[in-house]
């Protein structure tokens, strides 16, 4: 092959410029942390998802633009649509797990129970920690069996315990629960059934009658269920629904004359989107949440000043600023950022990989002083994780819907995690036995 001199020169220049571009990309990537966003902006759950991603993106943008990244490490993110399905959730994970242009993944949020269950083993094999706030396997609290799963802050078991403790507060003490009837109207799915074991245990301990009434997906007709509620006359209803089944439950309860102020929604039945369609029927509805609604927290002031007012927010509808789901996005993003920050204390101020991200999560300690420093005091509970405890917190606040906004009516209501721990360990040990996993010793890790 004989090329004219001009062509040779052009080829050399092209190669050199490409190499330069590659090295520039690599240099840029070396100081960037990839934050994958597996989202659901379309489909049946889009109305819930859109404010969540806005909260996450606004916080990440705030960290980059106001704080200059995490100790100088800038965050980059990319979205992938899952439609809240397992198969697309796996596809997104596979696309993201190796990072973006050299920027590694330190933590991964599957954002959906189906994907969280499907990815549990895969992520462990890839050594990428999954953060599942308010969903996922409760037994993954036991980090000795589930080193890469983090059902942080409030598992479904803790949620069940917190709601019983709140009812006890209202009734005048735990001893007053004896003889009471507490019905759980639940979405008939893995998520909905998750609280059956802890509620059975607590019913035995405190002597209340534990009634379980399932609602099949999607739950847009619930006459039969609420007719049973009317017949059984429970003192309280714990509503564990999701999506459209929540407003339908609240409206059907009103139709059957059940007082709405005796219904307590769970974490996935506690958003503005759940109650907006209920009109008058929803006034007085109670809900448990680890990330209450409201835009008067310190972080909101900061984000409003630096992101919203500058026209840089991902939020298309400003009315959603401070909504429960927007705030859940903020809290989810803050946990990931703080975990990376914790990891950087050991590994240096540089982007972290999955194993380092896991170390950061297991050494995460967001105390009250830290919450105040990052502007999340009141919006988020203190959170301390370890090898043996991948949940941390275990508390929720109770909020009440007044027809236009949520009002907080309690401080943090703590779950009785000690009572629940044997149940969790029994399940995690059974899982370890089934999968042939030898639990690691947390004594040396903590």
């Amino acid at each position, binding site marked *: 092959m004989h090329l004219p001199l001009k062509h040779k020169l052009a080829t050399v220049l092209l190669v050199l410029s490409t190499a330069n571009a590659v090295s520039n990309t690599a240099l840029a990537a070396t100081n960037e942390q990839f934050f994958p966003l597996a989202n659901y*902006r*379309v*489909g*049946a759950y*889009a*109305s819930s998802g*859109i404010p969540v991603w806005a909260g996450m993106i606004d916080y990440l943008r705030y960290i980059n633009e106001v704080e200059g990244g995490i100790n100088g490490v800038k965050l980059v993110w990319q979205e992938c649509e899952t439609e809240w399905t397992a198969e697309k959730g796996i596809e997104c994970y596979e696309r993201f797990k190796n990072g973006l242009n050299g920027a590694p993944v330190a933590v991964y949020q599957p954002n959906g129970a189906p994907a969280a269950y499907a990815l549990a083993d895969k992520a462990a094999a890839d050594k990428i920690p999954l953060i599942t706030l308010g969903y996922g396997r409760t037994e993954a609290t036991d980090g000795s069996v589930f080193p890469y799963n983090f059902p942080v802050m409030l598992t479904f078991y803790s949620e069940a315990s917190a709601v019983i403790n709140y009812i006890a507060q209202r009734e005048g003490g735990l001893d007053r629960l004896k003889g009471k009837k507490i019905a759980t109207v639940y979405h*008939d799915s893995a998520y909905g059934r998750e609280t059956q074991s802890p509620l059975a245990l607590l019913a035995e301990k405190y002597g209340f009658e534990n009634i*379980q*009434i*399932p*609602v*099949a*997906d*999607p739950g*847009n*007709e619930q*006459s*039969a*269920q609420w*007719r*049973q509620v*009317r*017949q059984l006359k429970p003192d309280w209803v714990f509503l564990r629904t999701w*999506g*459209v089944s929540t*407003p*339908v439950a609240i*409206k059907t309860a*009103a*139709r*059957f*004359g059940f007082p709405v102020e005796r219904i307590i929604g769970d974490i996935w039945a506690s958003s503005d*989107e759940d109650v*907006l*369609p*209920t*009109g008058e*029927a929803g006034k007085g509805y109670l809900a448990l949440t680890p990330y209450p609604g409201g835009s008067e927290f310190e972080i909101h002031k900061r984000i409003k000043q630096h992101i919203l007012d500058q026209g840089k927010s991902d939020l*298309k*509808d400003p009315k*959603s600023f401070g909504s429960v789901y927007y705030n859940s996005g903020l809290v989810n993003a803050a946990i990931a950022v703080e975990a990376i920050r914790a990891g950087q204390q050991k590994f240096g101020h540089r982007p972290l990989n999955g194993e380092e991200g896991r170390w950061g999560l297991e050494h995460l300690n967001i105390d009250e002083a830290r919450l105040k420093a990052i502007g999340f005091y009141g919006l988020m509970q203190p959170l301390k994780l370890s090898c043996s405890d991948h949940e941390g917190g275990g508390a929720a606040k109770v909020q009440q819907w007044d027809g236009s906004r949520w009002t907080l009516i309690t401080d943090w209501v703590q779950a009785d995690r000690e009572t629940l721990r044997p149940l969790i360990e029994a399940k995690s040990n059974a899982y370890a036995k089934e999968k042939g996993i030898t639990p690691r010793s947390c004594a040396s890790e903590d």
Partner: protein
Amino acid sequence: MTFFLETLIGGLLAGTMYSLVALGFVLIYKASGVFNFAQGAMLLFAALTFVSLQEQGLPFALALILTVVVMALGAILIERTVLRPLVNRSQITLFMATLGLSFVIEGLAQGLMGAQVRALDLGIEDVPLFWGDVMVSQFDLVAAATAALVVTVLALLFNRTRIGVSLRAVADDTRAALSIGINLNRIWQIVWAVAGILGLVAGLLWGARQGVQFSLSLVVLKALPVLIIGGFTSIGGAIVGGLIVGAAENLAEVYIGPYIGGGITPWFAYVLAIVFLYIRPAGLFGEPAIERV
């Protein structure tokens, strides 16, 4: 006994809500022999259009009229762009076209009007009423009255108007209808427009109960067993099918559910439909297909 009666009546009334959704399918199936997969998307689009217009400050009546106009224009557009190019193609081709259409309409609805949940207040109180000891829902009574009104209007349209006769002729034999000068394109436009308006009526009632959101398009899942039981070609069948499904699933949930774990309403309707398929494949009021072989 009171509890049984209450469950039965409640189920029958709930069934009329399913019938309202099923009627849109029947209309299009009668005119073209096609199961319109896009009916749920049309229902969502109609309800979203209505609430979006109301959000702009339009009064109820004006928003309703404008939505009817939008649905009629949509029907003309669908006929021109989707159905007309597929005339004389097989029914499965038309079915697949409606499948694609459903994605387009759903995407358009959410893209143009947003994916957030909207409240819809029709001014009908959803509170309990008591007939003696038996409790019934005021909202369900309004829904049942609406279904009765819709069926009456459709019956008059089919039996007492020239359009109705043309429509029946197209349904019986499309080629014969064409040969005597019936304008098939016009008939399809009218039928799709009426199906869109039926979607609006069903969308408003379901939307008032659960909020206007994407999951409205899923209420059509309830219509399929109704159609199998009542027959795809009978308006009366859609009503009877709805009543059967509503009553059966409510009774089953209360009396069978506790023994098998509960939450059985969605699949019980389909089990019932399978039983009917064994006994009467064309449904209770459907026209059995007879072909010379």
